[in-house]
């Protein structure tokens, strides 16, 4: 019975396959993409995550976007200027239509910014913006509370939504504009943007089918993909295998231990870029008295060998770090390099009166998906390095679902954290990771070092009011140097980004350090 049913199914499957095959015309280009996760919802304001932003770049357009050199490229805004210190005026592109057919105007920008200020995930970022004024159909002013140097950085997050499409009520009387976390809101199931692709179908958690938008405004875009499918493949090895076997054409990320295999494989190419996400160990000064002595903290910074971790353990998949700002960021200070020196570390420990060492606890997150084993391995390697200056580390790794609770409770003496600057700017690192913690304003919320240096804080705050890029960069570099000397945490590395694609996909021009491939512009050689 069972084998009969199976045979029947086989027959049926073959028939369906045969029926489907001729449907795909030869001159149409299909690109199949596998990421590690896919957004569950189509509402780009529901959650602030890399997956959502990747989707937003396919189905919407921002006012401006980052190019490969971390400078701004006009998209729906064609030009911009500062009429005064607290205002930025954007001139918008003419002749742009949404997927619904509605024309794009300044009204949509104003509506979108207001919606962003309501979104739980985005409102903190958009807090500096106080008012949006529509000047005419194609001109809009953004006002900030104080002089704010990062307004263009914010504009990369403004993906104008189709205000008419998202206004009104659904048949069952719900507000179409509502942002509902993990609920079945209108916006989570329907989408109308200006982007290069329209959403054909979404199977939450398994697949999103996109089609080229025929009325896309950007006629200069070289992109030639007609059908785009996104699938999530969470398991690293499976994702790599899917690319190597030709089941998908483009994958991201490529796990560290598969880099060699992908590099050697025929028919596919590997592309890497130093990333911007800093991983560090925060030394809690409230919990451990010894950590209040800067000599001890510096000794630990000298004891850890970032280069060995990067080359040996993580196979060159990370860039060793000695500061928070990666290259390209305003605050990146080229003088600050890893300072592994065991003798010096021992000397500093002796000077501080801790040559006998002490015992501390360490916690690290451990996600099955993002290089899961490596986190535990990194923690173990760091423990071994600290053991050489007689600091005994009792470490444990926790799944992500439990880690952040422990982190909020500052449950261990040393906490591992990975941080990505939402604004692609150095100040963000300081505000969240080193500012004196203040529960009222939320600054220093992720400062599990409990480090507090008002001098650094005021320098960064000064930089945040400075609209001259040169002077601002100088301040941030100085702040990095101060933190380097104080060593409230041990920076470990910036995670590199790695993508891999079939040879016929010309993926390199559309990649960037934000890990948001602009697939609307990608050129794919059609199959013969």
């Amino acid at each position: 019975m069972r084998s009969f049913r199976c045979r029947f199914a086989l027959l049926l499957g073959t028939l369906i396959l045969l029926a489907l095959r001729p449907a795909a015309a030869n001159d149409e280009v299909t690109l199949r993409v596998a990421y590690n996760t896919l957004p569950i919802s189509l509402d780009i304001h529901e959650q602030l995550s890399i997956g959502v932003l990747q989707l937003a770049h396919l189905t919407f357009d921002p006012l401006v976007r980052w190019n490969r050199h971390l400078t701004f490229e006009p998209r729906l805004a064609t030009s911009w200027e500062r009429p005064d210190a607290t205002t930025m005026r954007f001139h918008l592109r003419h002749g742009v239509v949404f997927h619904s057919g509605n024309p794009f105007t300044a009204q949509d920008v104003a509506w979108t910014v207001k919606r962003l200020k309501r979104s739980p995930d985005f409102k903190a970022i958009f807090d500096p913006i106080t008012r949006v004024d529509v000047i005419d159909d194609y001109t809009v002013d953004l006002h900030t509370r104080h002089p704010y140097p990062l307004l263009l950085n914010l504009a990369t997050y403004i993906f104008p939504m189709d205000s008419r499409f998202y206004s009104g009520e659904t048949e069952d009387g719900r507000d179409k504009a509502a942002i509902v976390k993990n609920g079945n809101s209108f916006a989570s199931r329907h989408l109308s943007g200006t982007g290069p692709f329209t959403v054909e179908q979404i199977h939450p958690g398994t697949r999103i089918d996109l089609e080229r938008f025929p009325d896309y405004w950007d006629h200069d875009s070289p992109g030639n993909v007609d059908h785009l499918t996104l699938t999530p493949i969470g398991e690293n090895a499976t994702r790599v295998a899917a690319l190597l076997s030709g089941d998908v054409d483009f994958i991201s990320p490529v796990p560290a231990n598969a880099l060699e295999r992908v590099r050697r494989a025929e028919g596919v190419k590997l592309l890497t870029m130093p990333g911007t996400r800093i991983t560090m160990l925060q030394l809690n000064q409230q919990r451990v008295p010894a950590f209040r002595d800067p000599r001890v903290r510096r000794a630990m910074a000298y004891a850890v060998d970032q280069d060995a971790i990067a080359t040996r353990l993580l196979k060159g998949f990370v860039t060793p770090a000695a500061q928070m700002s990666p290259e390209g960021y305003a605050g990146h200070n080229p003088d600050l390099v890893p300072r592994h020196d065991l003798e010096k570390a021992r000397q500093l420990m002796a000077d501080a009166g801790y040559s006998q060492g002490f015992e501390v606890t360490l916690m690290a997150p451990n996600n099955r998906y993002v290089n899961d084993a490596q986190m535990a391995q990194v923690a173990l390697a760091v423990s071994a390095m600290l053991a050489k200056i007689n600091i005994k580390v009792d470490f444990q790794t926790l799944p992500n679902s439990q880690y952040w609770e422990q982190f909020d409770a500052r449950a261990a003496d040393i906490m591992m954290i990975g941080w990505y600057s939402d604004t692609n700017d150095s100040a963000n690192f300081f505000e969240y990771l080193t500012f004196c913690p203040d529960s009222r304003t939320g600054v220093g919320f992720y400062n599990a070092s409990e480090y507090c240096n008002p001098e650094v804080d005021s320098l960064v705050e000064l930089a945040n009011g400075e609209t001259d890029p040169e002077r601002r960069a100088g301040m941030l570099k100085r702040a990095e140097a101060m933190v380097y000397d104080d060593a409230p945490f041990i920076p470990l590395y910036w995670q590199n980004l790695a993508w891999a694609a079939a040879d016929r996909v010309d993926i390199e021009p559309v990649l960037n350090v934000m890990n948001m491939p602009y697939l609307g512009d990608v050129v794919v050689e059609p199959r013969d």
Partner: protein
Amino acid sequence: MLTFLLKRFIQALMVVVAISVVGFLLQGALGDPIQQLLGASASDAERAALREAMGLNDPLWRQYLHFACSALQLDFGDSTFFHQPTLSILARYLPATAELIFASAVLTLLLSFPIGIYAAIRPTAALSRFFMGVSVLGISIPVFLTAIGLIQFFSIGVSVTLFPDATPWGHWLNDLLSTRGGMPAYGRGNPEHVIGVWYTNFASWKGLSYIALPALSLASVMLPLFVRLIRAEMVEILASDYVRFARAKGLTPARIYTVHALKNALLPVITLGGMQFGSLLAYTLLTETVFQWPGLGLMFLDAVERADMPLITTCLMVAGFFFVVINTLIDLTYRLLNPRIALQMEPR
């Protein structure tokens, strides 16, 4: 018989209820779903609002009653990760696991009967000693090691340089022992769509190449078990009086083995095999982990990692339900087959 079934039904219900209570009570301990849903940047007010909306502030027994009532209507709640009914998620991952088990079952049955019968008929022959030795080895090698070995040999490849490569025989031996690799080792590839949520690996050579290594390693644990089982049954039956009588009557050995012995050995083997269902699931889980086979086992471990309690509880309850059903069926066949055994199984 009816009382037996009724008793069994009540027991099944108790098992499922017990599992649901355990799963439910652990809900609080397994990480915070609110934290998972909202991420670290959410404010306390937002957390409180969602907590209230999800009914997490009600007294525990009330939450449980609510849960049990919907469970009776086959509504086990929505996964906190997928935002879909948990049963539909189970259904989505079921085909992958079912196909893996099916493929290895076919392998197991095709091989275990000839080997088991042979080993029973000729217990002292060199070949059956070899088979039994291998089967001890097979039982003793953890399935994940077999799987890793298969990956090393058939996916990564092994180049042996044990013998002098300059000599022709050494070169030949090295070549013989080396493997090229290249078999897919991870995932299901791109299985063909059949119907609904069912995608199959059996419709193309490529699909089959993906299922080959996982099925082989799963079969490597089931095969020795069945070979030993079949041999043991056959040995017992061949020593029984009626087989001796049949021999004395002058029936051909072939007829004795196939008609008289095998027929009688078959049902105990199937029922005893059915009892291995639980182990089979455990081995499947391990196999799926090594090969990243996107089935129920991998999904379950992911759910544990994400503290997706509704999904975990549903998995446990469905598994528990199936165990009880299968065991009841086994007991029933036992009773039908052999009333003597049924009597023995009664505790009094």
